């Protein structure tokens, strides 16, 4: 069992020698919290999940974004972050891409929702996106739900336990972006139920028995009641 506890900035999370994630600073042999959140001291790593915060793009993350602009070279994508994602046209049309012969709006238009992967994220320029690979590209339908990006790990659960539970109980397909954007497809009733369950995770992410709570909510309403 991983030890989880609430911390505020300045709290010492652990001592000794560990690997550590973002929002933690090493001072001497002490690991100090930099945010309000839940600290996890695992066997080989200490983590801090902040209560709130923006989505900070990291390479290899799967995100769901909204095309907000396009120019001759690619699409500007709102990835629910303080940075705009950029999807270069050459990543979509291939190396033979030329602004003169290819029409970008034939692929994605302003307002389209796309599933993408963060190709690279560095401070010197906007994060680059890519849609190469299975399952990436335009999302044609579904209900968009936004949750706090810091709650995404809770919504997914351990090895996808939480998200699989919600998906199984509601019969809906739930796609979660690391940036806090969730797209749900399925029957109208299923979508309503899924949306409530997702909101529940968002609001009660701090609860220790969250999985049971969500299961209780979904299980209780499975027989057609509210």
């Amino acid at each position, binding site marked *: 069992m991983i030890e989880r506890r609430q911390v505020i900035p300045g709290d010492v999370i652990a001592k000794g020698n560990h690997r550590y994630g973002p929002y933690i600073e090493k001072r001497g042999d002490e690991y100090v919290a930099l945010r309000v959140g839940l600290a996890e001291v695992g066997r080989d790593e200490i983590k801090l999940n902040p209560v709130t915060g923006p989505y900070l793009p990291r390479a290899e993350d799967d995100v769901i974004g*909204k*095309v*907000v602009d396009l120019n001759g070279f690619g699409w500007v994508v*709102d990835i629910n972050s303080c940075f*705009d994602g950029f999807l270069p046209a050459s990543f979509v049309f291939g190396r033979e891409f030329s602004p003169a012969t290819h029409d970008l709006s034939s692929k994605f*238009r302003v*307002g389209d929702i796309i599933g993408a992967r963060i190709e690279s994220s560095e401070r010197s320029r*906007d994060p680059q996106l890519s849609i190469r690979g299975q399952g990436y590209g335009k999302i044609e339908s579904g209900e*968009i739900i936004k949750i706090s990006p810091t709650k995404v790990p809770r919504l997914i659960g351990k090895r996808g336990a939480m998200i699989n539970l919600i998906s199984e109980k509601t019969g809906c397909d739930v796609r979660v972006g690391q940036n806090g954007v969730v797209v749900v497809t399925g029957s109208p009733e299923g979508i309503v139920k899924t949306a409530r369950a997702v909101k529940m995770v968002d609001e009660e992410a701090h609860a220790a028995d969250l999985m049971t709570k969500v299961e209780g909510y979904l299980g209780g309403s499975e027989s057609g009641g509210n």
Partner: protein
Amino acid sequence: MSMKKNYVVETIRKAQLAQLLAGGKRMDERRLDQTRELKIETGLIQKANGSARVTLGNTQVIAGVKIATGIPFPDTPDKGILMVNAEILPMSSPYAEPGPPSEGAIELARVVDRGIRESEMVDLSKLSLVPGKSVVAVFVDCNVMNVDGNLFDAMSYAVVSALRTAKMKKYAVKDEKAEATDQWVPVPVERTPVSVTMARIGEKLVVDPNTEEEASMDMRITITTDDDGNICASQKGEASFISPAQVLEAADTSIRVGREIRAKIMEATK
């Protein structure tokens, strides 16, 4: 870093919106002619002659009235001055920027000003002190604090509420010179104009559009009516058209909805 210019509605959400509207429903479960919850607070700014804060759904606007003496305009030597100004604060929306007012902010102030002016809400002839030389000038300055669509109506209600509750010094004229006395009097308010803004999305007109609806609309129309249901000002916005039948529909709606809103403004400012 690219600058965000306008809110973009997701294509799939726009499709859902259109589908709901076809069935006479809206995203936030309002009726097509239903406004969001309206809250009016007055007298918030101690140093102003009058003030009001209006919350319309998540849209929030604050208005302050400043009254002073001034020189009348040459074409109206025996009438007071009324001026409505608007500013959209940079903190009110991710799309608002500091700097000179945007086209939208200027249109906002002018549409609100015209509704108040053309309804003859304030009897400007009662604000004349020394004809051609000195009149009472009423300045209404508005700040948008949070943007969630329909700034026109929220601001109009804030200005009307602030003016209805504003107090000014009584002026005495002696030897062609106006001097303020210690006595406080209300601003000569004669009528209560109410503006109602509607957006056309596809075929349907919706009252009091929120950000999402404004980002999906083809056309917008603002109609201001007075206590007797007379139309005193109107403004059409955006690039698309409106059919004659829909103009009449919009006029009827603005009178009907305006009556309900007027009752709320009267209640909050009595």
